[in-house]
């Protein structure tokens, strides 16, 4: 985690000189000290996070691909003759097998990011989703992103 903070600092400062590095190291040390002490960061969690990086990257690329696919459908819908007649909006209660809190947040946000579906609310293991038409509704029940999240959980 401190490494990530330092990389962020370097990205923001745009140049690598001695004074930038010195100020960065001091600031990162102070912030990480505070967070490790009071905010529940631990090196164990950091190690878990590093182990998850490949799966997370694969997930992000799959998410971008899904967003592309759904966006094209959405554009076709908007530019069709009668958008209000072509849609079948509905609120669906979608039951999910994803267990951990963080992964459920990721799932809800991915559902919202893919056009055609918006997460209205999450209650326990039920995600309430507003789908704009049958196509998005079908895509929801065969969501590859959800399967990826379930796999990630199993492999932990």
């Amino acid at each position, binding site marked *: 985690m401190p490494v990530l903070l330092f990389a*962020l600092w370097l*990205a*923001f*400062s*745009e*140049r690598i000189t001695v004074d930038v590095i010195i100020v960065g190291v001091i600031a990162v040390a102070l912030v990480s000290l505070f967070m490790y002490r009071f905010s529940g960061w631990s090196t164990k969690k950091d190690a878990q996070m590093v182990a998850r990086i490949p799966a997370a990257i694969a997930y992000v690329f799959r998410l*971008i691909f899904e*967003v*592309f696919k*759904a*966006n094209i459908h*959405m*554009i076709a*819908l*908007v*530019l069709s003759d009668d*958008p*209000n007649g072509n*849609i*079948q*909006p*509905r*609120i*669906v*209660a979608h039951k999910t097998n994803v267990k951990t809190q963080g992964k459920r947040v990721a799932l*809800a*946000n*991915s559902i*919202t*990011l*893919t*056009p*055609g579906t*918006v*997460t*209205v*609310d999450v*209650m326990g293991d*039920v995600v*309430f989703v*507003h789908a*704009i038409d049958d196509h998005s509704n079908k895509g929801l029940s065969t969501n590859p992103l959800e399967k990826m999240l379930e796999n990630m959980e199993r492999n932990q």
Partner: protein
Amino acid sequence: MELFRLIAGTVFLVCGLFIFGVAVIGLFRFRYVLNRVHVAAKCDSLAVMLICIGLMFYAGTLGAILKLLLVIVLVWLANPVASHLICKVEVETNEHLEEECEVEGRP
């Protein structure tokens, strides 16, 4: 190389602007809030990404590229939260929700 950067950047920018244009049209063509949220907030996620990629080609320096990457990450995190809150407020306050869409379950 310079020419390639210019062309690639412009292609991405034009694609992003096209999607933004479609989003604006969709905003006016749909009637109901929950349908509008789909186009208003959603096409943004892709359009902002395409525009930022186009700007990355223009910028060229590593610092600017990393900052634009952070812009994409921030938008992709903030966008679903914002549209989710709009929907939640609409669903929880609208008493005649059934007239607008089929409701299979309600929070």
